[in-house]
């Protein structure tokens, strides 16, 4: 893979990665959010594949396939399952499947994402300067997705959106790790992935329990939990 091909493919993967992250803020339909997250998983996998091909490392490509399978396959599947579980009694399924009233509305959220992207670019300049190259120049993208993920956590009400926000942060951390180093050891990546999987399973259980207790998954209902 020559230099320009490498740069273009990497830019494409990173672009898809960023776009999927920002679009999560735009869509209200939870099923669409999960699809966007799966798309981002594919983009992340592609990014790592490109890096692996560039370094000629079969090992890294194998890791990429694993990362992709987890983030584009298993995790979205688990979230779909939580989403498709019918609410007990005659719950309002239509209400439940949508992010109806985010704390910050969609237009403002997109503007905020733009501001966060600016911050991310400004902050990661020292990292880019360390060793300029296509991979390090993509670090701001990963940082933007991290901030967007955090923003989703802060402003979205549904438990599933929270899970997605959390996973966006994790995707961004993984992307940063692969972009700034020449491949993460397999053990570390396995550990992180297992951690994420466990967190999602726990959050899935939480979602189910919340539905059983309150009939909805609005985290605003959890206000009573303070001393």
């Amino acid at each position, binding site marked *: 893979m020559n230099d320009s091909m490498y740069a273009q493919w990497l830019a494409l993967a990173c672009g898809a990665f960023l776009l999927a992250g920002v679009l999560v803020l735009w869509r209200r339909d939870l099923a669409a959010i999960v699809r966007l997250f799966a798309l981002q998983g594919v983009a992340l996998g592609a990014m790592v594949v490109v890096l692996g091909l560039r370094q000629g490392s079969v090992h890294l490509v194998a890791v990429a396939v694993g990362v992709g399978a987890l983030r584009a396959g298993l995790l979205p599947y688990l979230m779909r399952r939580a989403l498709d579980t019918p609410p007990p009694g005659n719950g309002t399924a239509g209400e439940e499947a949508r992010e109806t009233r985010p704390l910050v509305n969609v237009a403002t959220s997109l503007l905020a994402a733009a501001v966060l992207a600016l911050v991310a670019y*400004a902050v990661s300049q020292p990292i880019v300067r360390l060793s300029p190259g296509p991979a390090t120049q993509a670090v701001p993208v990963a940082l933007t997705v991290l901030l967007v993920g955090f923003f989703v956590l*802060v402003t979205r009400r549904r438990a599933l959106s929270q899970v997605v926000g959390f996973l966006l942060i994790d995707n961004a951390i993984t992307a940063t790790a692969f972009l700034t180093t020449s491949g993460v050891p397999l053990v570390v990546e396995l550990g992180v992935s297992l951690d994420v999987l466990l967190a999602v399973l726990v959050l899935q259980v939480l979602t189910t329990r919340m539905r059983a207790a309150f009939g909805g998954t609005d985290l605003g209902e*959890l*206000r009573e939990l303070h001393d």
Partner: protein
Amino acid sequence: MNVPGTLLTVALGLCLATALLAPAVPARIRPALSGLGTAAAGAVGAAAGGAAMAGHAWSAWLPDLLPLAGVRLALDPLGGLFVAVTGGVAVCAGVYGIGYARHGLSGRVVQATLPLFVASMLLVPAAASVSTLLVAWELMAITSLLLVLAEHGRRTAVGGAGLWYAVMTHLGLIAILAGLAGLAAGAHGEAFDQLRAAHLPPLARDAVFLATFAGFASKAGVVPLHAWLPRAHPEAPSHVSALMSAAMVNMGVYGIARVGLDLLRGSSEGGAPAWWWLLVLAAGGVSAMYGILQAAVSADLKRLLGYSTTENMGLVLMGLGAAGFFATRGAPRLAALALVAALLHVVNHAAFKTLLFQAAGSVLYATGTRDLDVLGGLRARMPYTTALFAIGALAASALPPGNGFVSEWLLLQSLVHAIPASGVAGAVALPLAVGVVALSAGLAVATFVKAFGVGFLARPRSPEADRAVESPPSMLGGMGLAALCCAALALGPTVIVPGLARAVGTLLPGAAPATGPVSGPVSGPAMETVTLHLSGIAGTMSPLLIAAAVVAAIILLAGAVRMLAARGRRVARLWDCGVGPMSARMQYTATSFAEPLQRVFDDVLRPETDVDVTPKQESAYLVERIRFHALVPDRIERRLYGPVLAAVDAVGRRARALANGSVHRYLAYGFWTLTGLLILLAVIP
């Protein structure tokens, strides 16, 4: 690996093996396993310390045991002394714990933590780098906290004591961590050898000393950082109280000596500032006075012993402070003498406090109470415990032939002989210090006469005391061992003085041995071995001869009284004002015994008394009931800690508005902090 290294490794291995095995065996034999394992580890540890005191140095570096820094261990005579003391206390506590644990303490956590606690206390004096010391220190804090909380299900006070202890020990850790981290940063290395070679600027050096002094002093229970001690020591199981009070508090003394006299050596070339050591002397003096005063008016037997620990640690710090002060004034001989006195008092205090706490535990075990006002009459019911407590009380009251007398006499000698040549500060401080030592010794006599007389003699003041039975043999064995140590230290302190002199040599290099075979008017090989000669000043003492003289005098006196009294003896009823037979409630109680003292020190103690009179309905002159309630609060604690706690509480109440229960709000705090920080980083070039 040489002798002390091998022995210390074996001791630590025994502790670890016991801790791993104890949870696995059935509850019936668990206390025996844990107790014997702890005792064996203690014995081996004491041997390791003894070997180090005999001059076999040892050091080891285990780079793989802890990440980043590794573990550095070393035993020099000073560390060996504290290892040996800890080992000795662990032997007594281990044996005693076998019987004491039948009292519902055979649970897995308690029995597995006990050997780990001992292991951590063996490690602290053997640590030779900052990280090793801090890890061992924290292990000691956590294991002792778990043991303090062992009986939390039975008394509500245990939880509060544990909280106080946890907070204060960790604040102490922070102070030590800050001080030693500052020292290590200045030395560009954290091994003790590098710290010794460091040259810190004066301001940094003072800060390091003050921070570590505060941290270590809080562990030693020095006023005003003592607030946890009279809470935690009484509430812990009694063998744990013994370990804490006789071994753990010593680590504070060790830390102050190690940092102030050893590790800061390179930084204080040309003499450490004299005010450091005057501060130590003053803190020791205040602790000695306040501790023994509170002990004198306390009616709770274990609380009394806890305050007595504060007093004795105060005396040790006075010796240490005097030693440092003399060293700065260029009087190495006196410095060495004061330091020997301080270290000898550490050993003596460990011996008698082990014995006293175990005896108090034995009383608690038999009667279920620690309140002296409802005890009494135990002499007939628990003869061995009574005899053993008497030995401990004699030692603690600093009277000959007890072992406490020897070290306090040495301390007084060093202070008195230094007065002429110590400048203005010394001329003011040292006479005061002499007065404090003398007064605390006098009050200690009153305190222990009260504890022994009211607690064990006369008639039982409650049915619980009346039903008391003697403790099981293992408990008596543990106490007996401690009593033997007391007796040995009382009669033959000359045996361990060479080891102490070596420990002093590590702290004050170049100082001549403080005591030694100087030919005096009465000399000869037999006299040399039993007599302490103070070199440089005219002073000799032979504890063995004093003891023999005291015993002979007592025998003569008792014989004379018996012979004289036998002639005119006549039996009659006691005068009881005509109201009938006197009841046990008419006896002196601990409170009434201490009342005159309380009156004398009224301005210091500020006791609170409350008299509640309930008259009969028909007449205001006929009284139905009078209720008298007396309380001596810890005034320093109330004045010093009260405002701080109130302020923290107020801040906490106000901060509650920040946490309204909304998950989004909590997440937003994190989000804004992160983005704010990032923006700040982006703006600042």
